[in-house]
C-alpha cells in the first residue's frame, strides 16, 4: 500500500463518521484578499496566543496573595523587607525560576504589542469603512475586545503588587469613589473593606486569569467566525466587486502565510523581551500606601486616561453631604464613556447620516471619505494630546520644559487641536481627490519637457494605465440626502430640527471633488 492510499484510508475513515470532507473542501478553498493592513488583526490574535501560553507559565509560580512575608530570596537590596506574597513570588519568578524573567517580559511585551495591534487594526477598519453593513456587529465586538484588553492589561500589571502598580490601583480606587453617591460603597465592595486590604489581589487574579481570558476567547471566536461568514473585505480594483472576493485560497497559501506569521510575531516579541527590560518590579519595591515614586505612569493604553485626569482642573462640589469630584468623574468616567460609546455607535451614526443601508464589501480609500477620515484624525489627535499629558513629567525633565506649561498646553490643545486636525485632514483628502482627478484627466507627469515649433515649452504627460484609472474612478460619490422640511402636501414634517441636523451632516459627509466621468474623458480626448 502506498502512502497516498494509506492517507486516503484514514481520510475516508474520518469522513465516513463525520462527513467532514464536503465541509473541509468548501472551507479550505475559502479565498482571502491580500493586503498588509489585513494582517494587523492577526498580530493581535497571535499576541493573544502568546499571552495565553506565557501567562500559563507564570501561574505555576505566582502566588496571588496579599499575605505579608519577609523576603529571603536572592535579590540583596530587598533582603529582609516585608512584602506581600504576590510581590515576593514575582521576585521569585524573576530571579530564581528558570526562564522566569524572560517569560515575564514576553508576557508584558506581548500585552503592549497586543494592545498596539488592536488599536492599529481598529484604525485600519475605521479609515477604510470596513465597519459598514453588514459588519456593524463585528465592529461592536471589536470595541468590546479593545475595552476588555485595557481592563485585562491593567489588572495584569497590578498583580505583582509593586510600588508602581499599587499606585495605579490607588488611582482606580479614586475613580471608583468618584462615582456619585454609590462610589464609596462600590469601592468598599471591590476591595472588601478599606484600601488596599487583603482581598483585592486574589480577586483581580481570578478575573485576570479566568474570567477575562474566557470572555476574550468567546469574543475572539465570534469575531473570527463573523469574518469567516461575512467574508473579508477587499480594496477596490479591477475585477473586484461587491459580490466576489479576489485573493488566495486558505489552503495552502494562507495556512502557510498565517502560520509563518505567527512564528514571526512570537520571534519579534521574544527578541524584544530578550533585549529590553520591562516592568523591573525589583527596582520599584513592594507596595506600601505611604510610598510613591516620581513618574508614576500606567502602561501606554491607559496613558491617555491618566493624561486626562492630570489635566483636569480641581473641581469639587458638595450636595446633601455627598462630595462629587468632577475633576476625576469627568476625565475618569464621563469622557471615556462618551468616547467608547460614540466609537461603538459610529457605524449606525454614519449610516443615519448617509442614509446608506446597502451592504459594502469593497473598502473605501480614506481620501474618498473625507469626513470620516477627518473624524478619525480628530479622535486620534484628542487621544494623542491626552497621552502626551500622561507623560508630562518625563517630557518636562527631558526637554527642559515646565510641567505647568505642558499641562496648560494640553488643556488648551485638547480643545483646539482636534477640530484643527479635522479641518486640515478634510482639506488634505479633498486635495488628494483633486490630484487623482488631475491624474486621470491629464495623465502622469513624465518630467520630459518639449519645445514646440513656435517656441512654447510643454511637459509631456503620459496617460495612466486603465487599471490605475479604474482604481481612481471606481468609487461612488453619493449626493447629500434630500430632506425637505415640508412633505408632499406642504405640511411641515415632524422632527424638523433632527432633519436639519441630519441634512447638514449629510452635506458635510458628501463633500467631494467630482470624480472623472466618461464624458469628461471623451471631452479630453477631443482636444
Amino acid at each position, binding site marked *: 500500500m502506498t502512502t497516498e492510499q494509506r492517507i486516503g484510508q484514514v481520510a475516508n475513515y474520518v469522513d465516513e463518521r463525520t462527513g467532514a470532507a464536503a465541509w473541509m473542501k468548501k472551507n479550505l478553498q475559502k479565498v482571502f484578499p491580500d493586503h498588509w493592513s489585513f494582517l494587523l488583526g492577526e498580530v493581535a490574535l497571535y499576541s493573544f496566543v502568546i499571552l495565553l501560553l506565557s501567562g500559563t507559565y507564570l501561574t505555576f509560580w505566582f502566588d496571588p496573595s496579599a499575605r505579608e512575608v519577609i523576603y529571603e530570596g536572592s535579590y540583596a*537590596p530587598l533582603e529582609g523587607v516585608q512584602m506581600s506574597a504576590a510581590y515576593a513570588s514575582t521576585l521569585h519568578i524573576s530571579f530564581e525560576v528558570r526562564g522566569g524573567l524572560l517569560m515575564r517580559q514576553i508576557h508584558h511585551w506581548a500585552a*503592549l504589542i497586543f494592545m498596539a495591534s488592536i488599536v*492599529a487594526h481598529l484604525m485600519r477598519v475605521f479609515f477604510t469603512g470596513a465597519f459598514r453593513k453588514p459588519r456593524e456587529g463585528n465592529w461592536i465586538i471589536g470595541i468590546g475586545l479593545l475595552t476588555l484588553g485595557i481592563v485585562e492589561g491593567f489588572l495584569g500589571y497590578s498583580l505583582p503588587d509593586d510600588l508602581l502598580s499599587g499606585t495605579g490601583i490607588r488611582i482606580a480606587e479614586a475613580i471608583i469613589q468618584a462615582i456619585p453617591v454609590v462610589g464609596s460603597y462600590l469601592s468598599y465592595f471591590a476591595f472588601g473593606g478599606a484600601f488596599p486590604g487583603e482581598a483585592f489581589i486574589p480577586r483581580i487574579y481570578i478575573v485576570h486569569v479566568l474570567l477575562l481570558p474566557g470572555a476574550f476567547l468567546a469574543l475572539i471566536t465570534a469575531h473570527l467566525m463573523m469574518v469567516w461568514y461575512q467574508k473579508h473585505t477587499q480594496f477596490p480594483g479591477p475585477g473586484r466587486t461587491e459580490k466576489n472576493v479576489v485573493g488566495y485560497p486558505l489552503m495552502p497559501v494562507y495556512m502557510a*502565510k498565517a502560520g509563518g506569521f505567527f512564528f514571526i510575531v512570537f520571534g*519579534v516579541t521574544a527578541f524584544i523581551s530578550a533585549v529590553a*527590560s*520591562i516592568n523591573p518590579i525589583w*527596582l520599584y519595591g513592594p507596595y506600601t500606601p505611604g510610598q510613591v*515614586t516620581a513618574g508614576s*505612569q500606567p502602561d501606554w493604553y491607559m496613558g491617555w486616561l491618566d493624561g486626562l485626569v492630570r489635566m483636569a482642573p480641581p473641581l469639587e462640589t458638595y450636595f446633601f453631604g455627598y462630595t462629587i469630584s468632577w475633576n476625576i468623574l469627568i476625565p475618569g468616567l464621563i469622557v471615556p464613556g462618551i468616547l467608547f460609546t460614540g466609537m461603538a455607535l459610529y457605524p449606525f451614526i454614519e449610516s443615519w447620516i448617509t442614509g446608506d443601508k446597502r451592504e459594502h464589501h469593497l473598502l473605501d480609500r480614506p481620501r474618498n471619505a473625507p469626513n470620516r477620515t477627518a473624524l478619525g484624525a480628530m479622535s486620534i489627535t484628542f487621544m494623542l494630546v491626552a497621552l502626551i499629558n500622561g507623560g508630562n513629567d518625563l517630557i518636562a525633565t527631558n526637554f527642559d520644559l515646565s510641567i505647568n506649561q505642558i499641562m496648560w498646553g494640553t488643556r488648551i490643545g485638547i480643545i483646539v487641536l482636534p477640530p484643527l486636525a479635522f479641518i486640515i485632514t478634510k482639506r488634505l483628502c479633498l486635495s488628494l481627490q483633486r490630484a487623482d482627478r488631475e491624474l486621470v484627466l491629464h495623465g502622469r507627469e513624465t518630467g520630459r519637457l518639449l519645445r514646440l515649433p513656435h517656441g512654447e515649452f510643454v511637459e509631456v504627460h503620459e496617460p495612466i494605465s486603465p487599471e490605475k484609472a479604474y482604481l481612481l474612478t471606481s468609487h461612488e460619490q453619493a449626493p447629500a440626502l434630500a430632506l425637505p422640511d415640508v412633505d408632499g402636501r406642504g405640511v411641515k414634517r415632524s422632527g424638523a430640527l433632527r432633519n436639519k441636523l441630519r441634512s447638514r451632516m449629510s452635506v458635510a459627509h458628501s463633500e467631494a471633488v467630482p470624480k472623472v466621468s466618461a464624458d469628461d474623458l471623451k471631452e479630453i480626448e477631443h482636444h
Partner: protein
Amino acid sequence: MKRLSRYRRHKAVGPALLIFALLGIGTTFSVASATTASEITTADRSALIEEGRQIFLKGCSSCHGINSEGGAIAPSLVGVGAASVDFQVGTGRMPMADMSTQAMRKAPLYTPEETAALAAYVASLAPGPEIPTEAQLNYERDGSLAEGGELFRTNCAMCHNFAGQGGALTQGKYAPTLMGVEPKHIYESMVTGPQSMPVFSDKTITPQEKLSIIKWIKAAEKEPNLGGASLGRVGPVTEGLLAWTLGLGLLIGVAVWLAMKAR
C-alpha cells in the same frame, strides 16, 4: 584627713564642689576639643577663613552681599554651614550660570582647596551643618542596603524616582538624578536641603540611616540592568514607545513583506 572630714558638712562644701566639678569638666572638654582640632592651628584656620573671604568677595558677594547678608536675588549665607557650601560649590551649582529656575549640576568652578576655604569662611559667620568626614561616610560598613531602600522609597522616590533617576517638579523645577553623585554630596544635601529639597535632620533620618540611603543609591547605580536594556529606568512611558516603534514597526514591516511576496 581627719581635719578635712571635719568640714564635710560645712555649708560652703556644696557650692565649692559644684565649682570644682564645673572647672574639671570645662578643663577636660577644652583639652579634648583642642586635641581633635589640632590638625589645623588657629592661625592656619584664620588664614583659611581670610582666603575664603577673598574668594567670596570676588565670586559670590555680588549676589550674596559683601557680608553674606543676602540680597534681593540670593539668600543670606549666615548659618548655612560648611556642608551647604561644600554641596553647592562642590557640585558646581554655585556660582550659578544664569538665574534660571534652578541651579544645575555642572563642572565645579573652584578647586577643592578653594571650596574648603569658602566653606571655612561661611562656617565662621555662624554655626551650621559641618562637612561629614571620611570616617563618618563609611556607608559600606555602617549602612544597611534593605533599610536604605525602604527609606529611599518613603522619603526620596516621590521626587527622585524609584531608581534615583530624577523627576519633574512644578514650574520647570526638577529633582535631579542621583546617579554619579558623590556620597559626601548626597549626605550634605540631606542635611542642608538645597533648593526645593526639604531638610532631613538627624532627628528625622539618623546619620546611620542616611548612610543606608547612600548605600542603596550607590548599589542602584552599580546594579546591572537585569532584564536587558533599561530604557532609562523611568517606567512605562519608554516601554510604550518601544512597543509602538520597534515592536509594531517590525511586525508591520514583516506584514508588508508577506503581502508583497504573494504577487
